[in-house]
């Protein structure tokens, strides 16, 4: 059996290449793989396409803008309509230095789920009659306009859970599972950081949220305190 446990986050991400597409789990402050993201900042890989629910709201992904590592971001929440609380990402977006593909949150989650489940695409009423539907195939199903959306996959996924074992099984705490659970299914290489790394069998079977076969690498990393900024 291949060893999944890595000692440091830096070693766990050592083959992330320039131009890679990376999914980042987490939702604002909950379940962000901060140790892996900081290792990526340290590594300095550039030309990255990031996929995450949000950027620039007290999560860590905005740190990738410090050394201009992002080429493109696919997210549901990036720049507030109110103009409040600008981020480094927003500054680079306004300067035309990064691209933003805004995706409705449910469509983003379902595209990732489809990508991980071997489903090519699906039709949804979300986004019909809005700019999100421009250039996309529309069908009327059950009397409603529905938009064709494609599955989404990545080269790497960085996810976080409270507990993990040597076999890669993950167990979440509270609302930490958010995008982490689906992203774990949708990348070629899935790297998990966990607060507590335990021996295989120590997580109660009924408490395993992500089956270990989805996880390629696992590394221990203490939670980074994050605050909410209204």
């Amino acid at each position, binding site marked *: 059996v291949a060893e999944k446990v890595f000692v440091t986050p830096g070693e766990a991400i050592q083959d992330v290449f320039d131009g890679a597409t990376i999914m980042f789990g987490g*939702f604002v402050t909950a379940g962000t793989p901060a140790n892996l993201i900081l290792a990526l900042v340290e590594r300095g890989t550039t030309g990255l396409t990031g996929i995450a629910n949000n950027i620039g709201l007290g999560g860590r992904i905005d740190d990738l803008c410090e050394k201009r590592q992002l080429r493109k971001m696919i997210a549901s929440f*990036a720049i507030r309509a109110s103009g409040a609380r600008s981020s480094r990402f927003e500054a680079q977006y306004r300067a035309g230095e990064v691209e933003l593909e805004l995706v409705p*949150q*449910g469509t983003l*989650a379902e595209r990732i789920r489809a990508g991980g489940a071997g489903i090519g695409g699906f039709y949804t*009423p979300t986004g019909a*009659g809005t700019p999100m539907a421009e250039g996309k195939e529309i069908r009327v199903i059950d009397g409603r306009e529905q938009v064709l959306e494609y599955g989404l996959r990545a080269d790497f996924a960085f996810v976080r859970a409270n507990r993990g074992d040597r076999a890669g099984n993950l167990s979440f705490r509270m609302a930490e599972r*958010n995008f982490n659970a689906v992203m774990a299914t949708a990348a070629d290489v899935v790297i998990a950081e966990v607060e507590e790394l335990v021996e295989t069998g120590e997580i109660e079977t009924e408490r395993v949220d992500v089956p270990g076969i989805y996880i390629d690498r696992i590394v221990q990393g203490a*939670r980074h305190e994050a605050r909410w900024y209204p």
Partner: protein
Amino acid sequence: MAMRVAQELRDGMAVNLGIGLPTLVANYVPKEMTVWFQAENGILGYGGIAPDDEFDQDLINAGGQPVTLRPGACFFDSAASFAMIRGGHVDLTVLGGLQVSERGDLANWIVPERGGGSVGGAMDLAAGARRVIVVMDHTTKWGEPRIMRECAYPLTAPECVDLVVTDLAVIEVTRGGLALREVAPGVSAEEVQAVTGAPLTIPPELREMRF
């Protein structure tokens, strides 16, 4: 406005509150009522906003605010959360708004001159929830109507809004257009019409908003 919206809650409902003003609705649930508040980041059954000193970064709503849990609460992942929303299992959503049209089109995710934008779960909620209430100021800071014949801003979803609650009035979107239902204390129907960019049907039994 949040107090008025809270009167639309019913016992046993699953309700999603949008970011900003709508989150305040959670503070006005009648004591005897059980309402299952859904947060699209994967919680059903949060109670209200938690005090700052009880902040737990893993226990937040979709706006990133710390929340408390009520008995019977549960967690799930984002795909399951939106299956709940998109599958019509959420009875009511309360969303903030920038503009609402007379057909109930909603625009609330981008101000074109500012660019960027953030859609979050708004399009999924507007398209998927059984009932959509929009809560917003009746006019812009400059006194321009936000309720109009056609939205000028890009839409969140067409023909999705059921009820609009503003600082001046409660307006229902009907097949026949906008119907004024209630006015704020001290405000007349004529005053509401004057700052509304679409015709309002004014019923003879116009009520005053109660809190």
